[in-house]
């Protein structure tokens, strides 16, 4: 009984994680697009993005921990943390481990962004575009519920949502309204000399 509870928890947390992660990715893209409306100020996008990202990690942790402690699967911690080390569905679980570690790096660098510099943070944040598809593939490849109608609907909605956001992002030119002013200020002040 306790084993089946763990197994359901793993599957449920996995489904919730992919929904949350997709929302986080969409919000991240929307914040880059500076989307806002009458009842949707811009800080709401970034605030939600940040908080949902942390919540995603919580469900991801639940997903991983319940899978590992479930004695029926007998995966072990190494399989969860070291990609492609699992005896069971080596490739698909490996994708999950990769996605997990990428997300961990993305969140960790965001928390210490002031210390690593904006460029380094941005570079690592781009890894989201790897982490998210890898996570979706992991779900498609090894999910117990993958081919049930409700899970298919969830996966399709996630792919459609993120896909639409990416298309919007690609279609919109850089809308940073400060870019020209900033470079004008920089050209005006750039000076350096030494004795």
């Amino acid at each position: 009984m306790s084993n089946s509870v763990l197994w359901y928890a793993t599957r449920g947390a996995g489904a919730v994680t992919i929904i949350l992660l997709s929302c986080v990715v969409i919000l991240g893209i929307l914040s880059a697009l500076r989307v806002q409306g009458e009842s949707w100020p811009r800080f709401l996008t970034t605030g939600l993005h940040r908080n949902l990202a942390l919540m995603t990690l919580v469900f991801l942790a639940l997903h991983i921990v319940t899978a590992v402690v479930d004695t029926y699967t007998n995966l072990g911690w190494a399989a969860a943390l070291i990609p492609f080390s699992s005896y069971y569905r080596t490739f698909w679980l490996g994708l999950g481990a990769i996605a997990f570690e990428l997300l961990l790096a993305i969140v960790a660098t965001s928390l210490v962004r002031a210390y690593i510099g904006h460029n380094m943070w941005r570079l690592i944040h781009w890894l989201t575009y790897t982490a998210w598809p890898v996570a979706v593939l992991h779900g498609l490849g090894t999910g117990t519920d993958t081919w049930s109608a409700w899970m298919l609907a969830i996966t399709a909605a996630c792919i459609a949502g993120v896909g639409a956001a990416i298309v919007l992002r690609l279609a919109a030119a850089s809308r940073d309204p400060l870019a020209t002013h900033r470079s004008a200020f920089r050209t005006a002040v750039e000076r350096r000399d030494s004795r």
Partner: protein
Amino acid sequence: MRLLDAHSDLGPLPQVGRGFIDALERSGLAGRGGAGFSTATKWRAVGQRSRGDAVILVNGAEGEPQSKKDRVLMTAQPHLVLDGAFVAARVLRARRIVLYIGERHQAARAALARALERRPEPELRLVTFAAAPARYVAGAEAAAVHLVNEGFATPTTVPPYPFERGVDGAPTLVQNVETLAHVAVLARTGSLPGTMLLTFAGGVDHAGVVEAQVGTTIGDAVAMAGGPSSVPRAVLVGGYFGRWMRREEAWQLPLTPAAVLGCGVIGLLPEGRCPVCDTAEIMSYLAGESSAQCGPCFFGLRALADACTRIAEQGSNPGDLERLHRWAAEVRGRGACKHPDGAGIFLSSALSVFAADFAAHAPHVRWQSA
């Protein structure tokens, strides 16, 4: 010993070690660049992290348009500034000293260069010059570090603070030139001069720099500057990042080097000048000095300046004055540096000291139906 009367040859610089930071602490010396931050705390932070690689960034940018005291000091007493920098380099075991001097302060730069030629100390080898662009934000600590590192005098977000990771990534002491001159006197004589440099602007008989005794009042210092040319309506204490005060209040203000005196600019608004127009002009200046990195600063200060100008020109929109009050508070803390904060505090003080003038200036002419 007063700063501006110090002899140009005070003999060899005394040997100082880490114990000097305790002397600094006891002296209670506060920075004279504007923030009034404890010098000993700053030195301790750099000293703890320095492994012989610290950098001393001598801040002579003086970007505040009304302030003249730093360049007067550098021109008249370059040796005191160098003394202070060398003491800092010894105490904090520095590898490099950068003289960050405003690009327009040619006399100051030349005086420092001449003084350097006569220095026997080994620290001489550590010195390089960097020119600070004539922009308001260029004097901010992080902007100074950014210019030396990358060539852009734009402020960066903190942390990491310069004392953690500054020039070349090393712990860096960014210190105003007047503060360093005080350090020099403390190292040489064992006590502080007990004075502070002020710049008088506006309606005084002798506008310019005055060295006033700590503990006296602004009223006394104005008398030193020849007295007001007419009875001033109000006093701008601390420059554009300071605040307007009623004359009676300002006259009584004791000269203690705290943040309220900022960089030491005392601007007297003569009777008959329109304070709303002056405030609008200064707000426009500050808006134009935003480095366009943070939206709330770049757009917010522009909106504030525009609303001020509309009121000054008697063509305000309905609600402009209320919005000014709200925005002046809201813009604070919304930038990577303190530029929006300084402008917001300045504007809030104007709105309170000149409340009647602002109210009388807002007749909504443009929006009245014919």
